[in-house]
């Protein structure tokens, strides 16, 4: 099948940093090395033929026994061209850290806090990387596959 223009452009520009791509039912996916995610996101946002100007979603997946263990998943939407693109960044367990996109999209701030809260993935350059859903005393990251299903958290007292 012929590759979409979006994927071709990304391949031309980023070469070896693109680990793989696939395309199915009009949905393009790019797997990119984590060293290039900010550069790629900036390119997608600014390039006049792509203009992926909306960061629809940012989340993470824990594949547990696979290496690298995590994937950070970004969904972009191009409003001018009505196209969508999924970008995945593999992240290892030993050093779960990716560069933050919060400078490019302010909305990335809370998404990244959620991914940090649930998966323990840190975002380098994030202005305020705290838990967003759980409370500060919470131990562990609940959406990791090795979080014990019957784990009980300590009760917290009233706040001032």
């Amino acid at each position: 099948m012929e590759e979409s223009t979006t994927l071709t452009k990304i391949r031309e520009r980023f070469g070896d940093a693109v680990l793989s791509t696939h395309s199915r039912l009009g949905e393009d996916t790019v797997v990119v090395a984590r060293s290039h995610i900010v550069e790629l996101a900036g390119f997608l946002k600014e390039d006049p033929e792509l203009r992926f100007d909306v960061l629809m979603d940012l989340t993470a997946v824990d594949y547990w026994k696979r290496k690298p263990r995590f994937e950070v998943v970004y969904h972009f939407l191009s409003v001018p061209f009505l196209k969508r693109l999924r970008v995945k960044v593999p992240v290892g367990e030993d050093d779960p850290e990716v560069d933050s996109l919060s400078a490019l999209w302010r909305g990335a701030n809370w998404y990244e806090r959620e991914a940090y809260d649930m998966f323990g993935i840190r975002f380098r350059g994030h202005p305020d990387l705290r838990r967003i859903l759980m409370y500060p005393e919470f131990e562990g990251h609940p959406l990791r596959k090795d979080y014990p299903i019957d784990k009980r958290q300590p009760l917290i007292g009233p706040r001032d």
Partner: protein
Amino acid sequence: MAVGPFTGGAEGGFFTSKLDEAIGWVRKYSLFLYPFVTACCGMEYMSVACAHYDIDRFGAGLPRFSPRQADVLFVVGTTNQKIAPILRQIYDQMCAPKWVVAFGVCTCTGGFYDNYAVVRGIDHIVPVDLYIPGCPPRPETVLQGLMMLQERIQKQKQAL
């Protein structure tokens, strides 16, 4: 004819009773509920409170939305770890004598929410006088529970 805790006829212009029982009789028909509503059971609580089932028939018709004016804490709906300290604070703000009703299975045991966020029963946070199971409990169940609570109030040693 004995009515409630009172014995003796009114012909002589007096009746005899025990102070504990008289106070219990007064208290059980003058309950001011504090509805601590967090989830779907709230619909069933509203159904009990409104005209169709009419909780006012049992002297509990006026919900107070300040814990300082209430004497029955109705915990209605799932209680999670994050809201637990707030529930405790509200309980502490209520004046004695006070009672706590766990409304619905989530407040009794956590229900099917066996996960990282939910407290497995509000009795981890506050002492509970009455458990009303059900997901959600039918209004009839709630009214039966309320009558059981009234019976309990009638029979208890009254704090003065």
